[in-house]
């Protein structure tokens, strides 16, 4: 994995996992964080990471992230506009995100493993009342 790529993912993980560097030290995501007009900027990171997280079921296509929500396109445009490093890894299409051709199969696997190992997303569920 290229150093810059690792730095980018670390920042994404930081932003979503809060166990690494504070925002203050961010390099690649800072501009997007500050300039994005998306109020819920964090959602774009969550979805992206959940897509490439290997162990997430029903998200088997790790080659293409097909947009599911109407808002996705606008949301990712903001991310790609303000973050240069992401262009080294992903390409934004109208209705999907795919991997950059320059990312080798080997590096891709490395990234997937890295995210799977380090990304731990928590949801809060409302459990049904037991009768």
């Amino acid at each position, binding site marked *: 994995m290229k150093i810059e790529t690792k730095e980018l993912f670390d920042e994404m993980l930081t932003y979503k996992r809060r166990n690494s560097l*504070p925002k203050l030290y961010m390099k690649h995501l800072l501009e997007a964080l500050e300039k994005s007009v998306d109020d819920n900027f964090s959602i774009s990171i*969550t979805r992206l990471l959940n897509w490439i997280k290997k162990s997430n079921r*029903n998200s088997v296509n790790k080659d293409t992230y097909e947009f599911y929500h109407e808002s996705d396109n606008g949301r990712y445009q903001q991310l790609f506009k303000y973050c240069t490093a992401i262009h080294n890894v992903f390409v934004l299409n109208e209705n999907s995100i795919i991997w950059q051709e320059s990312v080798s199969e080997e590096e891709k696997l490395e990234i997937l493993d890295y995210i799977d190992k380090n990304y731990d*997303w928590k*949801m809060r569920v409302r459990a*049904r*009342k037991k009768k």
Partner: protein
Amino acid sequence: MEDTNNMMVTSVGNDFGVDAKSLANLIAYGTPYKPKPNVAIDRSLLHTLTIENGITVWTENIIEKETIGSGFISLSQLGNYDIFYVSLHESGYMRIYVDPQEFTVNDEVQIWYRRLSLTAGGILIQPEYVPPENITEFSGLDIDGESISAERLYYGATWNTIVYINDITDFNEVIISDGTCSLYYNYEEFKVFNKRTINLDFTDHEGYGAGFIEQWGKGTTDFDRTKTAKDIIKRQMKVILSDRSGSISQLPMIRLSRLNNNQYVLEYKYEEQAMCKIPDSDWAIKLEFQSYQGLLYFLNLYYFNNSPFNTNACRYEALFLNDYDSLLALNLRATTEEQLTILYYLPYDVLINQNPIDLWHILGKALRRKVSNNGLNIEDILLSILRAIVYNLRIKTTYEAFLNALLTKRINNKSYLYLLFDKLNNDRFRTYIHFLWQIWSDSAYSKIDDDNTALTHGGDNAGPIVVPYTSNKTIGIYNTSARDAKYNTDSDEINIELVVDYEDIGTGNYDEFHSVEQAITAKYTFHPFSPLAIINNENPKFIYGTSQEGQFTLLPAIVLLANEESKFWSNLITAGEYAIDIATTLSGVGNILKFRHLAKLSLLQKAVKIGGYIEMTSGTINALLKLSGLNDTKFGQALSEYLFYLELLSLGAELSNAIEKGLKKAAGDVLKHEDDFIKHLDEVEVDAPNGQKRKLTEEEKIKIIEDIGSATDVKPKRQLQYKNFIKKWKGKSIANLSREEIADNLKGFTEQANRVAKIIEDGKMEFYILDEEAFKNKYLQLGGKEGDYKKYKIEAFSSGRENYFRSDKPIEKFMSELVHEGTHTLDNIKMDALIEKAKTLDEMLKIEKQFGNQWSFEKRAYFHERSFQEATGLGTEYKTIEKMLEHIFKVYPKHY
């Protein structure tokens, strides 16, 4: 109630008199088993504190077994303190409050006490200073209002009892009987009594004491000489002693000697012969009485009410009680007169063990007679019977049953309640009313809630809770606002006609400068036990004594009726006003601040939405009520009623439907007179910080009116709108709801739901309503586990700022889930904002930690959801908060 007998045992020193009490003391507290020199034993010097039904009770003359010193811990070990309060706790520890200090809290000087807690094992727990309101377990140990020295108190952990020694200089050692009912009979100690005839000085069943015998002897009395001579004989007790010392049973054999002029005889037998039933044999002490009254009096001196014996430990008790019962049976089969006579002598301990059915029966018999204390003291006996019946109902939930029985038991269609009301006189009438009042205070009849049948009695014609009752005393003449007060024999209802307003009927002929006012009255009908509140500042002489604390007194309707009886007033004049139980007096509004710590106050805030102004509102109303002339108007009455409910709530009453209804109605009534209200508000002056008075500001006036308004209309209106919204979407798919409509309908119930509505409007909370397949798919896509999906039976979930719901949910369920997931989203937004500001990893971790574990997150979500369910009035998913927490703790892992 007064004791029917004066049975107090007095102190015995070494130089005792030759009288019945001294002899009784010697038998009861003499030297058990073996002689001990220089020992003074006197239970009348002892006070004990025990727990009964969770309440600490301070009693005189109750003794636990064991000797102080071995079973008791001297509290002086804790330090040389003056003790102000003591309390016992059922779990087996005690607390004492010592060393008062002044503390200034919110500019108010309070007396705080140092609290020392002692465990059953005698271990002292970390002392701390506590504010006065923390002395909730105040026991009533406040002897003559003075502090007491620690060295006078002993704590008996085994029996969870505290013993207080009245005057430690009186004796060297205190011995409390070991309860085996054996006594070492030392003839030398007793011999002064031998062959003496002792006159028994007791107040007999006709109310006579022995004192007049002396007067008779001096020839200064007009009493019937025959009767008096008989009385002397009746009071005689002859003592015969054996000169052999040895252990004897403290419980005598009782027998009737028919051979010897129907004498009643007590024989204290030597222990080795105590089981022997042969009359007139092996006794050490023999006492001969000329009447059973004398014998009962003597036994009462030490055996029953003041018994030093642990009855379970007395080997011969069964024999003794058997004798005693035979003696009673012998006399109880006689006429009503004799039955009542013997009841007079029965000690309270024995009376309360009689079958309540028999007691009701005898009560009925007595009520058929002319009741007076001339001749047989039937009035006293009646009250004793009532007390005994109530004692049998010690579980307070059945106090209603007692009150109901007074109504349902009848003679010639007149209930016992009113028979007693009519037949008792003077002090006994006062005692009766006070007694009813006490019982009533502990019964469900005094509670203002939906289950109180007395409240709803009479349907729409039922009188109000706050009655415009006023009384005053001018030149010795009592005057009240009641025009008429009587009870209805058939229905038991009480009808009271009260002045509620005055009407100007123009100028009179005699004086053109003064208008003539005519009283307008209203007739109210009450159940005799219906709770009434009367405002205290209008009733300075009403039963109320010196306490100026409370704003209202809560009483049953029958007490008001009693108040209207002329005899009651004359009683008050002679007997003085009597203080009532503090519990029946509601606190003044000024005290609301002190009750702030009560969790239930939040109910009050909910009831009258704008919390901060309650105090001002109630304070203002209080001030308004003091304006002259206001009380006699309908507006004034509406105000007092509103104030009453405010105070009730401020004291921590549950916000029951009945109270909520009352509050709403009262607030509505006040606002019916809004113009009057605003006009009068101009007259109110409040205390300014500089000690001056000032008028209310315009803003304050508006707040107060809004405050009252919020108690009445806002909520019901909002609930109605919400119900219509739910109705509109019933059976329709929630997937078609617009964000605007959702947000609009979330608003107006709780602060949290308002916040959720706001983030929905702002787009900060994203949510998707999906069908089952898509819902599950999304859950798994976001990293959810198949196993969890099944285990939790997931109804909705929150993933950061995205939230997912099922489209097949009914509308009201969805709205409620929105508040739940919205709470998670709000948590998330808040956490994001804080984290973004963090400068170090450490700070970030700290911030995360502040939000707690999964239980903390779910508790917040479920609590807010539940509050929303409550506020919308559609019922809560979990019946109680406990059930809800149970669900959280059971289903969710603590950490996740």
